[in-house]
């Protein structure tokens, strides 16, 4: 028995019961959500050190893998499960009219996100992914404006399309191997999935799950959704949820799909993502969409990092992901009150100096100015790529560096506006204290990272090493060998 499943079960249970609780006491209904998340975060943190030594595999319902569904917890998965839980806690949606529903949705998001990170079964991942998608529809549409409905619907179309393709990919995998357990797939993959069928399955799943991870050609929903959803929701989606989708792709790459072609596809799409996102952001004239486009660019960098073969790629991707995990939500929180035209921001630093300073810090880290963590993350991505000495990777480095200069340009255009000495005609809104405090907390994390660079890098390296250790994964889950032949 392990308490880890409570990270998934408790939020779901609370979400189910929330409307009943509301009948009894509205106060309780308001507070139980955050409290439950706090509890699950504590559970996750208490398990954390124990996973450093050896990862943990649990079987839902106690059935032997691969018959039942496996929950596989290593620090890699737990890191993102915790990020999801704590992220939701920090970015707890606050909407006046739909408080009950958005609380349930937030709880569901936290529970599913954790489950998605911890799941060790292909179809289970799909179900978690779908649930997370549905929850995010709810969060986006929860704004209640006609724009949010329209963008949700458009998001739903592309996401539904992708999910169905991913399902077809899963069908192909099951057809070839007869199992859905990732550990067993890892055993069988070199023999059974290293062919056209396996590659087709990978492409289908990559594009299906890539929708949420803002993979290049399937990320057209990003700007409109982030522009219409509330900033807290955008922060959650761009900051945390996209990373979870990425995590699935990472898991699949590490365990199941080892084709070099898979890496090339990732690399090409990553390059296109960086180029298109940063270029589009350059002309964006409102902060929300600028951040949306730039997040496409940064996710592109993560895909490029993933395409580096071996441990180095996973390490680099992990570093970029963790950096982005802190940075993007913070930026979106600042955009909460600064949304809208950038022109109108002129002189906003005067009314909210702390927020403006924080924005400068975040911008500097985002474009990778040493010694801020963004620089080291970028370094980790570029260094192994140059060592590979292949034209496509050189191109990727070039695109990344060029994109960084574009990024510097457009982000500092915003900074310049903030510090403009002629204030705009309209008065500036001051950030809500809770928003600013959360953003500061995340920004503070970045600064703290500067001083803990070495232990942090070591920690991430060991997490990456644990994540890439396929044999430990198989041993920990220990799926029983499938009997060949038919039953009776």
């Amino acid at each position, binding site marked *: 028995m392990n308490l880890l499943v409570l990270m998934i079960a408790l939020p779901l249970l609370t979400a189910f019961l929330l409307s009943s609780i509301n009948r009894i006491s509205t106060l309780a209904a308001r507070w139980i959500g955050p409290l439950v998340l706090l509890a699950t975060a504590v559970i996750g943190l208490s398990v954390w050190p124990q996973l450093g030594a050896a990862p943990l595999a649990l079987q839902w319902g106690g059935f032997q893998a691969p018959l039942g569904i496996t929950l596989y917890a290593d620090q890699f998965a737990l890191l993102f499960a915790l990020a999801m839980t704590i992220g939701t806690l920090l970015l707890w949606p606050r909407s006046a009219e739909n408080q009950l529903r958005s609380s349930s949705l937030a709880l569901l998001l936290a529970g599913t996100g954790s489950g998605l990170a911890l799941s060790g079964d292909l179809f289970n991942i799909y179900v978690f992914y779908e649930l997370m998608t549905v929850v995010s529809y709810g969060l986006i549409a929860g704004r209640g404006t006609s724009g949010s409905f329209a963008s949700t619907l458009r998001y739903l179309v592309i996401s539904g399309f992708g999910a169905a*393709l991913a399902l077809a990919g899963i069908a192909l995998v099951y057809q070839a191997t007869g199992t859905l357990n990732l550990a067993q797939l890892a055993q069988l993959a070199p023999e059974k999935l290293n062919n056209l069928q396996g590659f087709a399955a990978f492409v289908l799943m990559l594009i299906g799950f890539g929708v949420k991870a803002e993979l290049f*050609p*399937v990320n057209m929903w990003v700007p409109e959704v982030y522009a219409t959803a509330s900033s807290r929701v955008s922060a959650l989606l761009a900051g945390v949820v996209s990373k979870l989708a990425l995590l699935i792709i990472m898991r699949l790459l590490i365990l199941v799909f080892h084709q070099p072609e898979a890496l090339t596809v990732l690399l090409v799409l990553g390059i296109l993502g960086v180029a298109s996102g940063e270029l589009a952001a*350059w002309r964006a004239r409102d902060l929300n969409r600028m951040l949306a486009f730039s997040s496409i660019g940064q996710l592109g960098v993560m895909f490029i990092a993933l395409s580096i073969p071996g441990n180095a790629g996973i390490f680099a991707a992990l570093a970029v992901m963790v950096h982005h995990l802190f940075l993007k939500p913070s930026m979106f929180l600042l955009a909460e009150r600064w949304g809208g035209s950038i022109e109108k921001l002129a002189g906003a630093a005067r009314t909210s100096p702390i927020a403006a300073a924080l924005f400068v810090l975040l911008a500097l880290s985002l474009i990778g100015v040493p010694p801020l963590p963004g*620089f080291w993350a970028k370094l980790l991505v570029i260094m192994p790529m140059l060592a590979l000495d292949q034209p496509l990777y050189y191109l990727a480095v070039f695109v990344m560096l060029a994109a960084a200069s574009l990024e510097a340009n457009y982000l500092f255009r915003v900074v310049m506006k903030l510090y403009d000495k002629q204030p705009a005609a309209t008065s500036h809104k001051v950030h809500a204290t809770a928003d600013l405090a959360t953003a500061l907390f995340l920004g503070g994390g970045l600064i703290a990272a500067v001083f803990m660079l070495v232990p942090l890098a070591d920690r991430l390296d060991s997490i990456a090493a644990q994540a890439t250790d396929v044999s430990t994964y198989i041993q920990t889950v220990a799926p029983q060998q499938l009997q060949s032949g038919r039953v009776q």
Partner: protein
Amino acid sequence: MTALDTLLLISAITVGVALLAGNWRVGGWLVTILYALQGAALLMMSGLGYSTLTVVQSSFSIEVLSEQLLWRFDALSWFFALITIGAGLFSSWFASGEWGERYRDNGGSLRLFHGALALNVFTMLVLLASGDLLTLFIGWELVSWASFLIMALAGGKAFGYAMRYISYAFAGAMALLGGLLLIYAEVGSFDFQSLKEAAPQMQASTLWLLVVLLTSGFGVKMAILPFHLWQAKAYAQTPGPGAAFLGAISSRMGLFAFIVVVVQLIGISRLVEMEIPFTFLDAQDLLAWIAVFTIIIPTYIALRQHDARRLLAWHGVGQTGYMLLGIVIANDLGSAGGLMHVFNYASYQAMLFMVVVAVIHRTGTSDLNKLGGLFTRMPLSYLAMLIGIIGLAGLPPMNGFVSKWLIYRSLIVDGSPLLFLGAVIGTLGTILSVYKLIHNIFLGQLRVEHVAVREAPLSMVIPMMALAVIVFVTGYFPGLVLDWTSAVQASIGIPVLAHHLGGVSMKGGLDMIWIVSVLLIGFGFGTLVFFLGGRSRRVHQLDNYAGGHFLTAETRYHYSDNFYPGLMHLIGPWYRNSFEWLERGVISAVDTLSTAMQGLYRNAHPSYLLLAAVVFALSWVIV
């Protein structure tokens, strides 16, 4: 704690004090004293400047990504640090008195100004102390952003120029990062020594890529062609002494890094081996020609400016060409000249900016068409500017002459008459434009609105005078500076120039003590004749004739607008703003791409792209 630790610590403290106490009445003085202390800490390491010490390590070092990050000073760093701290000291001194009060009264934040200045000095020291390629890049970025900060202080228009600067600088930094990481991929280490050992074995193609990346990266900061557009306007908009500081040393950091990586580690001899296909040029020639065009074009752009600060700033761009030229030639004469020019240029450029700022302080304008005749009102400033422009034009007896002489001489020794010709054309433009500067500000007739103008306050005059003394003394005894440059030459592996206190010891060498003494004697004799001859008569400043017409005191006549019309008629058509066009072209290309991408993301049918992606990905494997 080593001397370097002390230096960096004091410098960091200076930043803190500046940010904390900058707005106090004594804040500026406090900071100035701290700069002096930095100078003292630097002198503790003066062995570096005289080859008695080779390296001073910092005890601070961290290990990141299994790379040991080191900071240390050698002769080169020491030489540049000396100039940096000197520039910081004088600029801060200049800013501490009346200028600062005025700045504060006009709504500026002195705290920010002093803080930014101190931060610039600190980051530059960190850069100069870099002990490997990674720390070099870190220092590089810090310096870039610190200069950005001080440039943007003025707000308004300055924002635009600072933005342009940071766009250039960050793109350059990214090229640099690419280059450094390429070295890492080739060499497997960020260590200086490993690169030095690996450079001779590198393939020509890799080396070309490296040289292009690194030179572009460093070149942006140096503002060599074609990256020169940002500098002049950005410097000119920097508040007062900040411009003096930036003009004196900031863009020299590019040169420093260039010397460290390209000259010292990769080696000029490798550049010579790199032939450009289908021409008889090699990479060294290419750099030398870039340097020459960097001398000529900005200098003649400066000629057209009618704002004193812009004129000076454009010269800053042009003079970089001399330094780069000397260093790229890389013989004993050239490199000594290039290095010495860094020092000399810093001394008179800071002084000239200070004079202009003092003039602005008193008259409120730096527009060359709205000034004139201030000689009678601000004689000390006039003297400082006179000394400065003699130095800038490279005429004896000032120090600028020595460094330029060395560079010219090296070109002749090297057998490059065309380069020599280019450099001389540049000097010609310099002389013309500095005359325009001093004439339009100080000579001619005083304008009515400037009758009440007084000499600049002492807090401004003293730093100017001190710099003037430096300019003259190092012109008189160039051996003082040549000692340091020789130490640098020894440490970066270039033949050491044989020199003595008065100049260069070689056949047809230079002895400034002799030259200047002769000049002084001649000058003294002339003065004697002038006063004893009794032929001279003092006239009023407005008592002038022009074109045969007697002008009354009511009709002012000061020839300042449309300077050098004949020359301009001759060379006017050559001003084509080609680089502005180039810049605009790049921007509009990015803009077009950006619009296209935005169009992509405004696609009505996102699913269509999903399908296309699936089909392409599948077909890539199947077909």
